[in-house]
């Protein structure tokens, strides 16, 4: 956009006495860190930001809870050549396209990211968690199931039970997206979990998944925000719900709700930091990312929220919950017992089919 217009607009406003937007003081760098808000941002503040600001008094971290609209805002900012964010927390699948489109900076893992305490380079320590050169993984989270222990006669143990209305009657809550739901439908319908995407790649396979979803459609409430499923379970509106495991942990361990976890075929995904191209404080942002993603910080975060650290070297350091004093290891989605049946979505398959299947999913919902 032409600069004169912008300047005129701004000048007019400043002249009108509207310099309300908090002019940054010259001495301190305001680093804008965008994340998801709520308990998640709180865990990042406690584990990363507070110690970071103590160590770097010249940097002030400003939290912006806009990750939910992160993709759109980042894309609009970048298209306009006007990036205002320094560090953005996103889920892995979203960052892959952004990276391809050149909106994010590539990270040199062995140079920019701290090695493990024993000297193992970061690339090795993160291993297969590095799914995109632009994405620094922090935690592994899963979308899995919680159920009401008092409202169901039998405890569900398999993904098949989610689709079994006869033995497990009552409403279910599922996320209002095709991702995971189609995979679960196929696995529950007897498809070999290793071949789910081969089946989905055919029109008959997609039909089959929707047909399976049809069987529980009347009994399903669709959620859009992470806070909804625990609430729906707590209110007794549904008897089982797919939800982010950390949210379920909170409802179970902290709020003592009569809810239990069902980990069968939990869908794992990664959440982490990206550095937008053109970030206003690139150096400080890199410094923060390096600090936040080191072994100790990732292990610390698990004290506040039940998401698994993305570094191999952090796993043994995971201890007890800071307030509740519970050992956090059994609550990690990466715990081998929980992750016995688990899958990671096929990012590139979804990149191709998300537009089409989202439209179809919405059309299916509206019927």
């Amino acid at each position: 956009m032409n600069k004169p217009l912008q300047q005129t607009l701004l000048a007019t406003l400043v002249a009108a006495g509207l310099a309300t937007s908090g002019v940054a003081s010259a001495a301190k760098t305001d680093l804008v860190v965008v994340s998801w808000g709520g308990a998640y941002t709180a865990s990042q503040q406690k584990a990363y930001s507070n110690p970071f600001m103590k160590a770097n008094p010249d940097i002030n971290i400003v939290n912006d809870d806009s990750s939910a609209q992160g993709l759109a805002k980042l894309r609009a900012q970048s298209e306009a050549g006007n990036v205002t964010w320094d560090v953005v927390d996103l889920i892995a699948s979203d960052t892959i396209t952004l990276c391809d489109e050149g909106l994010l900076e590539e990270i040199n893992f062995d140079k920019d990211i701290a090695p493990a305490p024993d000297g193992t380079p970061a690339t090795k320590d993160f291993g297969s968690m590095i799914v995109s050169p632009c994405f620094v993984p922090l935690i592994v989270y899963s979308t899995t199931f919680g159920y009401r222990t008092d409202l169901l006669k039998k405890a569900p143990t398999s993904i098949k039970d989610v689709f079994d209305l006869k033995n497990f009657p009552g409403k279910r809550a599922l996320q209002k997206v095709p991702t995971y739901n189609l995979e679960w439908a196929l696995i529950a319908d007897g498809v070999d979990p290793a071949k789910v995407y081969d089946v989905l790649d055919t029109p008959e396979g997609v039909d089959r998944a929707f047909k399976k979803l049809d069987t529980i459609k009347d009994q399903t409430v669709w959620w859009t925000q992470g806070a909804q499923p625990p609430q729906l379970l707590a209110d007794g509106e549904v008897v089982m719900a797919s939800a982010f495991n950390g949210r379920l942990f909170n409802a179970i361990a902290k709020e003592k709700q009569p809810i239990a976890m069902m980990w069968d075929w939990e869908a794992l995904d990664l959440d982490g930091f990206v550095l937008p191209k053109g970030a206003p404080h690139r150096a400080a942002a890199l410094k923060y990312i390096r600090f936040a993603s080191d072994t100790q910080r990732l292990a610390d975060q698990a004290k506040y929220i039940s998401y698994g650290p993305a570094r191999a070297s952090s796993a043994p350091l995971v201890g007890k919950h800071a307030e509740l004093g519970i050992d956090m290891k059994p609550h990690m989605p990466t715990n081998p017992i929980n992750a016995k049946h688990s899958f990671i979505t096929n990012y590139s398959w979804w990149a191709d089919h998300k537009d089409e299947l989202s439209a179809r999913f919405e059309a299916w919902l509206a019927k």
Partner: protein
Amino acid sequence: MTQVLTTADGVPLKTSLHRTLRRRKITALLLVAPLFVFILITFLFPIADMLVRSFDNSLVPNVLHRTVPLLAKWDEKSGQLPGEKVFAALAQDFKEGQKNFTINRLGKRLNYEKSGMSSLFRKTARKVKRLKEVPSYKQALLKIDKKWGRHDVWFLLKLQSGSVTPTYFYAAVDAHIDDTGKLTMKPEKQQIYLNLFVRTLMLSLLITVITIILGYPVAYLLATLPTKKSNLLIILVLLPFWTSLLVRTSAWIALLQREGVINDLLVWMNIISTDNRLQMIHNQIGTVVAMSHVLLPFMVLPLFSVMKTIPPSYMRAAQSMGATPYLAFARIYFPNTIPGIGAGSILVFILAIGYYITPALVGGTQGTFISNFIAYHISNSLNWGLGAALGAILLAIVLVLYVIYDKMVGINNMKLG
């Protein structure tokens, strides 16, 4: 020769009058100019800017600037793939696009038209870097991905090579251009927006009818009561009007939800059992009830102001000539209120079809409106072109209604509260 009238300083009166008039006209324009410019910059320009996205396709000719002119010469009807030259140009465009990060943006853009383009572009872009001085680019690209040997892929590239495209608008009405180049409807399982437009219009119409049915008697009562009493009662209409939309929407959630006030009351009165609580929210009922409540004042107020102007003597005259009160009402009073019904209906309808907040909070999957999908495409799917096309259609509907409203009521006569 007639004497020309002049003013005291000798200027002909006619000229002087003209001059004054012109000066006054300019003053009037100058008074309006600041707001006009303000609205233009902060409001109209942004909307126009967004609407451009609904047909802008410059990404394709910009990124594939070598391929597009060559493709124009390719005869897609021959059934043959394009020649080596086109493949070579494409490989060059891919190399350049990979360097400046535009190629994957293009892949995502074309994926809206055909699933699979995104990964085809990503895969090709990654591998094309290594191609140097190969004997045949055609073979090389086919080796990278055999999809480059598919006629429909090339046909799509040719179809989309213009810098403007109608395909977002096609998608907005569930149509597409199929592989043979014909404009057809999408398979039924993927149709979504036409139904959504129909649903938005039908629910808005239903809401309008409900507000007429509820609003008419109230407006009649207000118009015929003595002013002192009607002034008190009109506050009951104005209070919801002045209460925050979010407040009213949360009130309806409290009333309608499964564990809500109305269900509790019905259970308490033994009309329903506690296991059979009514589902009145997160569906169309929720949207219609809450929106009728929100929009009712917009019906009552115009009706009231029209009814106020109907002299009570009309009714008396009719009755004195032997008409029963019902006949007098039907033949005399009601026809006089039709302009009010029209004005209120269009106002309510215009407001209803653009609603976003209330359907988003109480509409569930069945009670959402077209606005909710525009928001979805802007902030979630990032298919901004489709979002803009849906917006353009919605805007066109609203503008047509606005013009009708203007013809009927005159926007100069619009009143508030």
